[in-house]
């Protein structure tokens, strides 16, 4: 097994170097040597970690949760690594660059879900669950239907979120290496499959931790450089930005992105409760030893993420002045009349503006590392939903051999990798922060209500959870498809049937209502059993007695 892994890793590395050479051969003038060097160092280091992790990943528990031996601080940093995605780094900086204040609205929405997760879900998840959040929803309900529902919710969110990451990575590598967009997307897909399939959660966690540290160091440096140019005065930075930006003073006020009240409230619901329904985030609470470490994780993660979002705001405004307003328009593509590589590249060009070629190389490599870390976490969550929830618990009768279950998750990893590549290419032209918002809408409408009610509401029945969950999932999907992003921008069908980009304000209450209604009208035997078993679940949820302990490595 190990020999096979090693030879595969060597092969992959060789293929990567070949790809680098190819780019150098065709577009040598555009090749960014420091970026390429740093990128290869990162890839080599993470493949080394994957090799190390592969030797320690024997059981299903190792594969899904790194044996439960991650500390709170490590896990918090890894959560931050998972959450500070390309959509956050490139997308939000790009949004601040494009719209000013409105970018901050997204940052705040992405952040305020975290305290709610801490108060309502994190320790409860740790005490009740094992590998995936479906372990919690299916705790006292009927396994099969609830597992299938949760797995579908997970997979939908994972695929959408993956699309956003793939688009960001494709654009970035296209510019950085001069490679074709399609080739870049395939490269990312191949690497994430390697990390996840061989290294499991342990490798994924360490890729996320390293990336979080690199990203925070890079963005801190960039923000300090920006502020130094304006004498560390926000007033001077903002004044300079409003002079350069075509929207002028309007960038200091909310309004451009969320123009009507319903959209604003709906966006708020999607971002806040969506975070609490992201499968790759929920999964991270099973990697720590106990509830105490789970809480610490959220504290560390919230601090790092909050700090990072303040930096994206500074960087966005910095990009307005130093990239958009750069002398000689060096970052401007006059053929398309946009920023070179579109708005999502604002952060990358800012790196060049404040730190020159070498720092541009560093930030490009970090941005790429960011994408690899996030897609690995997503892929692992998607593969777990398929192997643990669908294969092992919903469709297999009797006990499943652990080795077989791990093999299924590896096959699922490859399948998700292929799907991510295909979708990544199809969605090339979308603003990636919007695609993430769509993923959040589904997470908030399908995953969160069922999870929340299964922990807190005694009278929840299997029927209520399943029908309510599907009402949330389907209404979110339908409303998104009929909305402006898919109906108008992607399908080109003209004016949208549903005028809201974020339909969470309708789909989330609808899901809760359906869960309530179909539970209280359920008079079956199974319903009574679900209600009877609540007390035992609640005691374990409150105390952690009987929950999975940690395994030392």
């Amino acid at each position, binding site marked *: 097994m190990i020999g096979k892994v090693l030879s595969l890793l060597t092969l992959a590395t060789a293929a990567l170097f070949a790809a680098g050479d190819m780019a150098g051969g065709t577009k040598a003038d555009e090749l960014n040597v420091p970026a390429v060097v740093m990128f290869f160092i990162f890839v080599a280091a993470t493949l080394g970690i994957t090799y190390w992790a592969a030797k320690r990943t024997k059981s299903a528990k190792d594969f899904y949760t790194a044996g439960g031996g991650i500390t709170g601080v490590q896990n918090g940093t890894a959560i931050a690594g998972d959450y500070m995605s390309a959509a956050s780094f490139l997308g939000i900086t790009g949004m601040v660059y494009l719209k000013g*204040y409105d970018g*901050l*609205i997204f*940052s*705040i*929405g992405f*952040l*305020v879900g*975290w*305290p*709610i997760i*801490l*108060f*309502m879900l994190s*320790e409860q998840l740790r005490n009740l669950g094992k590998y995936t959040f479906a372990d919690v929803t299916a705790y006292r309900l009927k396994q099969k239907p609830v597992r299938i529902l949760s797995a579908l919710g997970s997979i939908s969110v994972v695929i959408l979120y993956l699309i956003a990451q793939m688009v960001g990575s494709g654009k970035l590598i296209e510019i950085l290496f001069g490679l074709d967009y399609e080739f870049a997307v395939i490269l990312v897909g191949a690497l994430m499959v390697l990390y996840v399939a061989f290294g499991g959660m342990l490798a994924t966690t360490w890729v996320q931790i390293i990336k979080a540290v690199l990203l925070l160091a890079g963005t801190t440096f960039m923000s300090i450089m920006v502020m130094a140019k304006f004498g560390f005065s*926000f*007033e001077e930075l*903002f*004044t300079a930005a*409003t002079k350069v930006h075509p929207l002028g*003073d309007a960038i*200091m*006020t*909310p*309004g451009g992105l*969320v123009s*009507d*009240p*319903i*959209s*604003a*409230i709906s*966006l*708020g619901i999607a971002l*806040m409760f969506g975070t609490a329904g992201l499968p790759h985030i929920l999964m991270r609470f099973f990697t720590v030893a106990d509830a*105490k470490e789970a*809480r*610490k994780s*959220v*504290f560390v993660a*919230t*601090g790092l993420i*909050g700090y990072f*979002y*303040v930096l994206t*705001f500074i960087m966005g405004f910095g990009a307005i002045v130093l990239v958009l307003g750069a002398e000689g328009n060096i970052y401007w593509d006059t053929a398309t009349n946009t920023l070179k590589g579109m708005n999502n590249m604002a952060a990358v060009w800012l790196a060049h503006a404040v730190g020159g070629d070498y720092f541009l190389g560093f930030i490009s490599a970090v941005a790429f590392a960011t994408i690899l870390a996030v897609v690995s976490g997503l892929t692992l969550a998607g593969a777990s939903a398929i192997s643990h929830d669908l294969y092992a618990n919903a469709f297999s009768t009797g006990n499943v051999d652990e080795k077989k279950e791990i093999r299924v998750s590896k096959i699922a990893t490859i399948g998700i990798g292929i799907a991510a590549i295909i979708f990544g290419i199809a969605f090339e032209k979308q603003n990636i922060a919007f695609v993430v918002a769509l993923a959040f809408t589904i997470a908030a409408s399908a995953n969160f209500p069922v999870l929340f009610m299964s922990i807190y509401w005694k009278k929840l029945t299997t029927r209520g959870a399943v029908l309510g969950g599907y009402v949330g999932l389907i209404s979110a999907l339908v409303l998104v498809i009929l909305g402006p992003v898919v109906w108008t921008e992607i399908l080109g069908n003209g004016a949208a049937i549903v005028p809201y980009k974020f339909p969470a304000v309708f789909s989330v209450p609808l899901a809760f209502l359906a869960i309530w209604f179909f539970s209280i009208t359920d008079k079956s035997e199974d319903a009574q059993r679900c209600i*009877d078993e609540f*007390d*035992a679940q*609640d*005691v*374990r949820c*409150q*105390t*952690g*007695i*009987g929950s999975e302990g940690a395994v030392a490595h």
Partner: protein
Amino acid sequence: MTHEQAEQIKHNPKYQELVSKRSKFAWTLTIIMLVVYYAFILFIAFSPETLGESMSGGITTIGIPIGIAIIIFAFAMTGIYVKRANGEFDDLLREVKKDLEKEMK
């Protein structure tokens, strides 16, 4: 865990104290966070110009310090919860577990 064990734990006064204190605390903090965030969202929805008002006459609008303050507030809330939960509540939980062990003997 059997139904009998669950019943036994549920009747432990320390367990009841832990659960009631912790849920009350968690719900209070949740509601505070929701109020703060949705107040902000409602301003964006119905009165964006309020957040666009100038701070002390310059170009900086009051929406900017308010936005940053919400981020810091969210972090502070997690700190407050973790401190009490990992201290007071976990101590109570340890006592509950000790009681249980005694009763098992």
